[in-house]
């Protein structure tokens, strides 16, 4: 294979090029029929197309689970990692390469259970990552075990007599974490809202966390309904700085006003989760510095020659 020179390449490949949806298509998705993950994938693909994002400038990082197959289906760089550790790999990518856009996709078990510690600390680091959790309230890939967000009483393979713990309110956890800068919730069955939420997250600088309530018709129909029906009650958040609520949604569910800049208010909204899931932007604070900024990475800023000089100065200190 002959390597093309960058200029030639740009001439050949990029000039006048407009990216179409196809440019973002990876392998054919192998999710089940009716799986909510499809919608999330196409929402991301549309976003990239709309923003004309160069596929090579994006890295999609995931863990392990149905949802974590995501990077295979998206034609950007992709890292399909290990269970629960996506946030750590993604943090590494971004610290190493602040010039890349980094997307993290995880399942609820992946992020909230085994990944819990990294979740907590990554929110605090506030590295510039767009994070999407596809929350089907179940362990799907391993076939039906309880997850932290499984509703109390649900019978699963490891809780045949019903889950004993109250489901974890992940929204209220995140709003308790210092430096949480962007928290939104949407659903896989409200595509318009989904698109807008993911776009808002993508445009936020810092860790933008989107929890998507995701239909898994196979293992958690009790949570979100089967055959297109949605059982779980939800409420839209209306906010001029938030996610626009289309007319059509107003018929689907109640709409309430909320100010996403108000942390106390966001905490109250988060508690609604226990009765009617709030959909929209719960909290947004664009002024929290990102971790990569704070670390003042100067790695690229001195020349190799200058580095040799400074290293010699360092060696001087050890010289007898």
């Amino acid at each position, binding site marked *: *294979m*002959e*390597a*093309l*020179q*960058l200029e030639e*390449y*740009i001439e050949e*490949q*990029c000039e006048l090029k407009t990216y179409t949806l196809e440019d973002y298509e990876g392998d054919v998705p192998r999710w089940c029929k009716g799986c909510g993950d499809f919608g999330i994938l196409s929402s991301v693909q549309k976003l990239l197309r709309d923003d004309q994002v*160069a*596929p*090579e400038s994006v*890295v999609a990082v995931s863990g*392990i689970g149905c949802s974590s197959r995501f990077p*295979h289906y998206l*034609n*950007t*760089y*992709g*890292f*399909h*990692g*290990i269970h629960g*550790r996506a*946030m*750590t*790999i*993604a*943090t*590494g*990518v*971004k*610290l*190493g*390469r602040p010039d*890349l856009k980094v997307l993290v996709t995880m399942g609820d078990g992946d992020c909230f259970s085994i990944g819990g*510690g*990294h979740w*907590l*600390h990554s929110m605090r680091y506030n590295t510039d990552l767009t994070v999407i959790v596809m929350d089907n309230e179940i362990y799907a890939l391993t076939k039906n075990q309880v997850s932290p967000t499984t509703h109390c009483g649900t019978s699963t393979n490891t809780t045949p007599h019903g889950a004993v713990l109250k489901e974890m309110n992940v929204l209220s956890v995140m709003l308790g974490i210092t430096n949480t800068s962007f928290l939104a919730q949407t659903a896989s069955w409200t595509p318009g809202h989904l698109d807008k939420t993911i776009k808002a997250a993508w445009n936020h600088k810092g860790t933008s966390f989107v929890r998507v309530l995701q239909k898994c018709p196979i293992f958690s129909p009790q949570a979100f309904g089967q055959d297109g029906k949605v059982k779980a009650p939800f409420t839209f958040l209306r906010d001029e700085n938030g996610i626009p609520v289309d007319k059509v949604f107003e018929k689907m569910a109640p709409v309430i006003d909320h100010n996403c800049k108000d942390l106390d208010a966001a905490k109250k909204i988060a508690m609604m989760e226990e009765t009617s899931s709030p959909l929209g932007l719960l909290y947004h604070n664009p002024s929290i510095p990102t971790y990569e900024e704070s*670390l003042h*990475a*100067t*790695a*690229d*800023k*001195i020349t*190799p*020659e200058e*580095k*040799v000089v*400074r*290293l*010699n100065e*360092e*060696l001087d200190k*050890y*010289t*007898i």
Partner: protein
Amino acid sequence: MPHHGVLTMKESKKIKLDEHIVEFVCDAGEGAQKAAVSFAKVSAKMGNSLWTVEIIPSEIQPPPHTMGSTSGNRIRLSSKTVTNGGNLTNVVVAFNEMNLLSRIKGKMLADDVVVIIDNKWANDPDETIRKQYREILDELKAKGADIYEVPIEEKTMTLIDNPQRGKNMVALGMLGYLYTRDMDILADEIRSIFKKKSKEIQDNNVALLTLGYELAKETINFQYVIESTPFKVPMVAMNGNEAVALGAVAAGFEHCSMYPITPATSATHALSEYFGRMGGIVHQAEDEIAAIGVALGSYYAGRTTLTITSGPGMALKTEFLGLTVMTETPLVVVNVQRGGPSTGLPTKIEQGDLLSSLFSTPGDAPKVIMAPTDIEECYHVMITARKIAEEFRMLVIVLTDANLATGTQLYPRPKLSTESFPPPMDMSPIPVGTKPYDWDEETGLSRRIIPGQPGGMCRTTSLNHSPEGKVNHDPDMNQKAHRMRSRKLMTLQKSLKKPEVYGDKEGDLLVVSWGSLKGPIDEAVDNLRKEGKKVGAISLQFLSPFPPGLKEIFSKYKKVMVVELNYSDDWDDPMVNEDTRRYSQLSMLLRSHTLVDVDCFTRVYGRPLMPMEIYDALSKRLAQK
């Protein structure tokens, strides 16, 4: 060890020595470390080689005047190059008898040790203290020690009020006399330590130094002379962790992702300092799993990154080590080994992580394992490790240990150039159809694609995958991918040199080792050869893959034996036989690799083996049928 020559001079006997080991111990906070470091520095400036080891209590500030409170330094001085801490201590300066006792219990002192101890405890109001002081000294004397009970604190208080702030200088002055150090250089060194303090403080400390010198002169009627040949090249003195850190910067590492753990942490402290001046990031992660995850993500994205840890931290990284191998992401992991298993002996040396480094990951995960043998190599190994990691897209584990980490050695100042840095990040476009795992069937090597390269979009997955990077469950593809990863190790192996034998190239016994035991083993071999024994030694810098030719080398000796610092059953233990004996880690690997009956002598004392202990073990082995 007999004195090598005795000269009688006007004021005192001058005893000429090739080398000597001196310890300075006190309670944590009494300043022995500081004084000892100055002593070492001045000795180095005068042209002595040296190896110093910190003596550190295992708590931050343990109850004073107990065995556990002992803090200080152990310095081996020599007229020749030194590669290890040596044998028993010849001279010890102690501020109280419990510090002394801890060294006796640690079996570190020679029978004829010269002891300088503060005599204030002889008249302590507490009878228990008076008694234990006397008993300890009597016992030492009975064994042959030469004891000087000196009013160190009392004398110190003739110059300053708080003896805790000055008696270390007095003791340093005494050592200056005993080892005929150049007092001008010593005074300069003291002034430079206090250079940020007032002239008065500097003068006071020099006065204390002189006081100590005079005190010794009054008390001790001999002086040691260790010949010093001025160094022909500039020399640096540092510990192994500093060497790793400096080596990492010289190798071009720009990021370090870590989680604190003894005895590895100080390497990352040093990196935090260096990166502050040279560009770079130290990320302290929430745990060791995240630490390696971030390092892996960063290296995947093209940034030269390392992670540094020790035993329990390595254990936590296990799953990620497997991912690194599976995805063929370059990565360098430094493991500063400490005593195990579990939390074990956190501040002490062991070479206990060879097998776990090789085999911790479920499934087959070929990786490179390197081990520097001294502090100089700690620096240089980082450059080789980085190159291998990138050229072979492999995980390289560098195994150092607690003694390298905290010991200080003199070595020639490394020459720096931009050549040890990696080339600039490759951002060139990727030709259409390039595969992310385009394995060369013969070498297993493939071109690494870096995110951001136009046209190179591909997936990296922890699942088995095809050359295209796609998830693959095909039986033959799984076999092939395994073969390719294994093949890279062979490719590297072909480029390695046959290890060099130290000592006899054939004969009765070959000693095999790795890491920091090389030094003491070579000394033991020297001594055996002086007695006419035909003994050789090899030390393996590469533990995976093994260098070529081992079986051939082994075949030249009647017996082959590994000496290392991890556990093995001894032949003379009851119940031990051919069926039950658990061999030490390297010997196990070598037995399998060569089918030679490689024996082993190992201890888990939490300290290095001394040349004389190795000498004894080898002699015993030679004497056996």
